[in-house]
């Protein structure tokens, strides 16, 4: 099937079998390998991307069915420009060890803030529970989300999450 995916503001034309999931299209067909394949079964959250600002699991989305605008980790900050406040907060709070789950954590965290679920550490833990971290950097991840949340309110980020 011939499809057009709009990713980080740019259209990408490709031809895919119906069974190709968005995760594989991003990584193997388009070369955007920032989105990670963890379990490939909807259980770990590593493949989280935003579609029209909503966080979804790209391993459970058929590429040919996507009509919205996709945001991946590569689209959060301009080349050479300042990082997204959530990316900066993850660095400052040391919210990762191996880093494999981090792209999914950051996209999920941005959506978590925009949904209004970053009001307390308890709320962040509940609404970030879909992103597993095998290194167990959870306390620092929670701190990063809490740090970035007020900054995101002050600065319009480059994601389409603002439209939610």
């Amino acid at each position, binding site marked *: 099937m011939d499809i057009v995916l709009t990713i980080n503001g740019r259209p990408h034309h490709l031809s895919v079998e*119906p069974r190709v999931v968005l995760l594989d299209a991003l990584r193997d067909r388009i070369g955007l390998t920032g989105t990670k394949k963890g379990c490939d079964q909807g259980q770990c959250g590593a493949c989280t991307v935003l579609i029209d600002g*909503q966080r979804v699991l790209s391993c*459970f989305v058929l590429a040919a069915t996507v009509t919205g605008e996709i945001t991946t980790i590569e689209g959060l900050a301009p080349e050479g420009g300042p990082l997204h406040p959530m990316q900066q907060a993850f660095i400052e709070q040391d919210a990762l060890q191996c880093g494999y789950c981090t792209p999914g954590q950051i996209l999920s965290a941005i959506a978590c803030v925009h949904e209004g679920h970053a009001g307390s550490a308890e709320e962040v833990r509940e609404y970030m*529970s*879909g992103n597993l971290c095998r290194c167990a950097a959870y306390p620092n991840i929670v701190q990063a989300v809490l740090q970035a949340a007020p900054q995101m309110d002050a600065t319009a980020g480059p994601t389409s999450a603002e439209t939610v």
Partner: protein
Amino acid sequence: MRPFALEMADTPAAATNYATQSAGTYLAGGTVLLDLMKLDVIEPQTLVDINALADTYGAIEADDDGITLGALVRMAEAERHPAIRRDYPVIRDALWQAASPQLRNMASLGGNVLQRTRCSYFRDVSWPECNKRAPGSGCAAIGGNNRRLAVLGVSDHCIASYPGDFANALVALGAEVGLRSADGSERRVPFEDLHRLPGDTPEMETNLVPGELITAFHVPAGPWTRRSLYRKVRDRTSYDFALASAVVALHLEDGVVAAARIGLGGVAATPWRAHEAEAALTGRPLDEAAAEHAAEAAFAGAVTHGGNDFKPELGRRTLVRALLEAAAMEVLP
């Protein structure tokens, strides 16, 4: 995943036509379907993408008679809806405690109620025995690892548990489900009649006829909906299936139960309404003794298989706690 054909339905008629003529399987959120396809548990030849029908089946409408939830409403949308939060808190409770935020953004309500069991022997095709996946092959869970499996509504052929949360609220509140058949006719049936007990045909999980499409859920208003909640007990604090859960909705008059609506999750073969527990409570003051009496009634028919021997007791305690908490709720007039 095995290859399949993908059809895009832009009208309800196109959807049911594809589903009947191509023996297609409806695709909404895909969170159950693609999962089981990746595991080779199911191998549909054709998927019919119905997401474009959200204009028709994607609304939430509340009035004095109740609330109607379109089948293509996403779980996260319903969780946020002001009328649900105010007048049907048990529905919001059941939704936000299910799955993860990502999955709730994706999963449709119609697909959610058709969620398949998490029984390991069903999901792992390397096990030859599973009457649900391969009819007549036997049940590896009976005598196997059955800690998470059902104790109510089970049979000698299958003890798989229904894993969902939202459906337990629907069944307890006496909801109806709207259906559209391939010939375009519509019907409404009690939600309680949507799922089938396993009996000797556990592969047949619902009473849907081939090609039939879930269009909406109609939840009737009642004096019990505001005093309602969902309590869910699980191994992890968040993002896990229920070991035991309870839906409670109460109409109290001077502390006496005028009407009770009770559902159970994590412990039964299907979304489960505890009619015996409701009857045991009606007309009695709701105190701890009455709650325990009702919980005994709810699990009187429990059948356990070793690994899940703990479930009736956990289920009773979960229900007692839910009943006492619901009785203590501060409810808007």
